[in-house]
């Protein structure tokens, strides 16, 4: 039997996942058209984000099957999703002779780290060693740092060429950073109201809506 707020949360998680998977279709275009592997981090990042939202929905709906380690897996995968996006931004600004190699090494290391993390989580009695709350706080702090890096990068791009079309993405990432901050507060202060977590989820929906708006406007707006 689900509580009312759990039902709402499942709906928001599913909607977020669908939005992420639609965004993947747009985010893969820079890689498809330019053939530059350093842009593959964007669809990977949004794909992983979408997958974590699906896992989140399942872990609420079927806690007996998707409980326990699934919580850790979605925490880790979400942080890696943000890392994929952040490294894409980092390497997009440095088209040097060796940057392609550095990107390939970074991508390989990220995947190795991700697999090792999943294997560690799968160890027996893992949740006796690390409490979920400690892990949650730690990963949220890392997420905020990564998103702030992306925010600064995109805002710098806007400052270089100020335009009404380039301001939306840094604003979108800022919403995501505040959303992560809200979930961090929810993790730190145990008896905080559920409004905090729903505030965070709504901010996340705003972030995804901004990105969808920008993508649809770019690809489907009629041009002269």
């Amino acid at each position, binding site marked *: 039997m689900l509580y009312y707020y759990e039902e709402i949360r499942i709906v928001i998680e599913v909607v977020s996942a669908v939005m992420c998977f639609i965004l993947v279709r747009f985010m893969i275009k*820079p890689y498809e058209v330019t053939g530059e592997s350093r842009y593959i981090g964007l669809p990977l990042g949004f794909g992983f984000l979408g997958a974590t939202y699906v896992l989140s929905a399942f872990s609420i709906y079927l806690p007996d099957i998707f409980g326990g380690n699934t919580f850790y897996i979605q925490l880790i995968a979400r942080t890696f999703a943000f890392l994929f996006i952040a490294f894409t931004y980092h390497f997009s600004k440095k088209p040097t002779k060796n940057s392609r190699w550095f990107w390939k090494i970074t991508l390989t290391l990220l995947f190795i780290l991700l697999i090792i993390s999943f294997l560690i989580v799968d160890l027996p009695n893992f949740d006796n060693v690390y409490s979920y709350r400690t892990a949650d706080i730690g990963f949220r702090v890392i997420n905020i740092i990564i998103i702030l890096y992306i925010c600064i990068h995109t805002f710098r791009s806007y400052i270089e060429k100020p335009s009404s079309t380039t301001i939306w993405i840094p604003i979108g990432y800022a919403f995501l950073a505040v959303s992560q901050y809200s979930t961090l507060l929810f993790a730190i202060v145990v008896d905080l109201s559920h409004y905090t977590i729903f505030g965070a989820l709504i901010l996340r929906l705003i972030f995804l809506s901004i990105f969808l708006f920008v993508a649809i406007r770019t690809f489907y707006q009629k041009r002269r």
Partner: protein
Amino acid sequence: MKKIARRDKMKIYGDLLTILQYEINNEKIVLTRLQLKLNVPFDRLKQYLTELKDLDLIEDVTSPKLTEKGKEYISEYEKVLDFMRRMGLEYQK
């Protein structure tokens, strides 16, 4: 020749097709003019044009014109560059 950042092949293809699109109203497209605008050696330009012809993106190598497929490609290419600019991504300007 002015010094520009190193471009990958896809970027050169994109630039070349964009120039051809702007030259669409010209009866005859002069290759040396294309070469100056694209900023590549002449033999390299001819090589790129042959490759684009093989991909069915242009009609003729000596007086290149965009095919329908070429027009579609350049439209998509410009949209993607615009999307990357909006996303705050850089692509070898």
